[in-house]
């Protein structure tokens, strides 16, 4: 778990987007771990913070496309929580840890891959600058 980036994704659109990404041949570096929940709406602040505390470098909450949540607006609820945790992290001055909300439709394999790698690169750049 340490120094990894945890992708918490839903069992619907985001899971399909991840599967599509791998089908298209886009692989992820070993730092990424995935964890499936029924809906990203079931993520809460405690869960995000605990994971960061347990050594994860970052948590990416990966939900369905904005209007396409199976459970109406679970993804938007997750976004609000991610925003709150982000604010808490910045207020507490925590560096080198991040939480991000990513939306992905099942046909966005390539874009999803680029987005995820982007977080890794950003983290590496931050490390070098220190």
């Amino acid at each position, binding site marked *: 778990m340490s120094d*990894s980036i945890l992708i918490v994704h839903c069992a619907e659109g985001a899971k399909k987007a991840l599967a599509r990404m791998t089908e298209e041949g886009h692989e*992820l570096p070993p730092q990424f771990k995935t964890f*499936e929940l*029924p809906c990203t709406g*079931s993520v809460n602040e405690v869960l995000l913070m605990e994971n960061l505390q347990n050594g994860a470098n970052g948590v990416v909450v990966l939900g369905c496309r904005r209007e396409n949540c199976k459970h109406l607006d679970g993804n938007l609820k997750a976004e609000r*929580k991610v925003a709150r945790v982000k604010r808490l992290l910045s207020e507490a001055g925590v560096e080198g840890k991040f939480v991000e909300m990513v939306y992905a439709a099942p046909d966005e394999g390539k874009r999803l891959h680029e987005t995820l790698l982007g977080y890794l690169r950003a983290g590496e750049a931050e490390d070098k600058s220190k």
Partner: protein
Amino acid sequence: MSDSIVAVLCDQQCSSKGPLQKTSLTKRLSQSSTIGKLILLDKACQDPEKKLKKVTGRKVLFGGCPYLEESGFYSLAAESLGLDPGEMLVTDVKSSILDLYDNSETIEENLIGRLESLGRLLADSAPLKDRPVKLKRNVLIFGSGYSGLKTALELSGEKLSVDLVETEEPPLAPGCLAAGLGSPGLIEELTERVRTSEHVAVFPQTQMGPIRSVEKGFTVSFGRGEPREYGAVIFAPERTEAPAEQIGAWNLTRLYEWIGERRPIKGRIVFVLDRSSETPPEVTQDILTAAKVIKERSHAEIWILLKHIRVALPGLQELYDSTREMGVIFVKYRNLRLHNEFGDFQIAGEDPQSGAPFRIDNPDRVIIPGTSGLSASAASAAETLGLRLPGGRYTQPYSLWRLANESNHPGVLVCGSARGNMDAEGVAADAASVVQTLRARMVPEGITPVEHIASVDADRCVFCLTCVRVCPYHAMEKNIEERVAQPVTTACQGCGICAAECPAEAIDMRNLSRESVLAAMQAL
């Protein structure tokens, strides 16, 4: 190695990264605290039975590719092993492990992490002993008006057995539909389709005994027959209207019949609202719709006399505006005098502000809406079904319309004009909504119940009703007596939104508790 959980994996021979290696995986798993045994299925897609025999009396963690899931392999295996949904988990190791990482070392490491993580979740999970209550797949529809018939037809396509009670009152009363303002012969056509449908049985209300509430449903006997059991009752009564004043005026029901006969309409027609008491906006809506239809069809002169204009219904303001544009004359009155002398009406009144008198001589028709309400039989049915209405009484149709389709009982639904004035599209949408709700609540045989349903810790619940507000499925109910939220297990879809939003942390998802999710994430 613990001995509690068996991991059964397809060895992924077809993968471009090469098949999984049992020796190295078993070696790594020997450190595992949850996975006790690893079975690799070669040719999982063809001959799994022999190897599955080695799995007995344990929880199983299945892993394979999406194809294996689509082929129904897991459900067949679970059935042959006698596994409950709480005793197994399925993970897609192909797209989320093998294809996700580039080298075999990372793949193995992550696969072990995944197995360990899900093993922890599975170790904490319990078999589903409290399966969701399944409503019986028999439905009783009370009411044979447009909404009752439409709902019966919608449900007949759902492989449900549907009984329809034809109410004593002819299917006529409210709105513009039954009055023939919609398509002529609409009700007759629907009645014919319902009568010829093999999934719908029609009973006259005269034969209907009282509705009795039993465990998981209702029973009703018809005539001398055996009591029939129902999982759900759809309450689709007609509104009825009392006769107008005994001065030769018509009520709305009579007007509808007249319009429905499609005879020529001419002359001067006067509607008198707010006569003995305030006319409710729903009735005003009926009147304006009728006025509009008459204007569209003829050159009749239409007067609408009222004390106040009320627009407290969606779309009513627009209806006012459009009828006024069509030439309907609105007059506010006070001290209205209405006489019928040998068939000649005399109407006189005063302007409420200036006091100036006005007269309308010799109108051809005077229409005064009668008090409308639920018929006595519908009201008593509502009472037996325990419909809690905002007005506290069952005989107030204008409080009934505020009810949602879903009443306070999971097996009782209300639809059609009982919920307010609707046009044909509105009623069709209402019927579809009822069908959707029932579909969610009547779990068909052979379908696995949702594994992660919400449960509320009554000691922690502070009755803030956040869960009632956020649940996308209306699967959280208020238990007002005990001041606690409670899940409707048949409607819960296991998304977990309520548990995440609950400020008191009083809600837990079965087999997906906070602690086990955190432990599982930690094990990755």
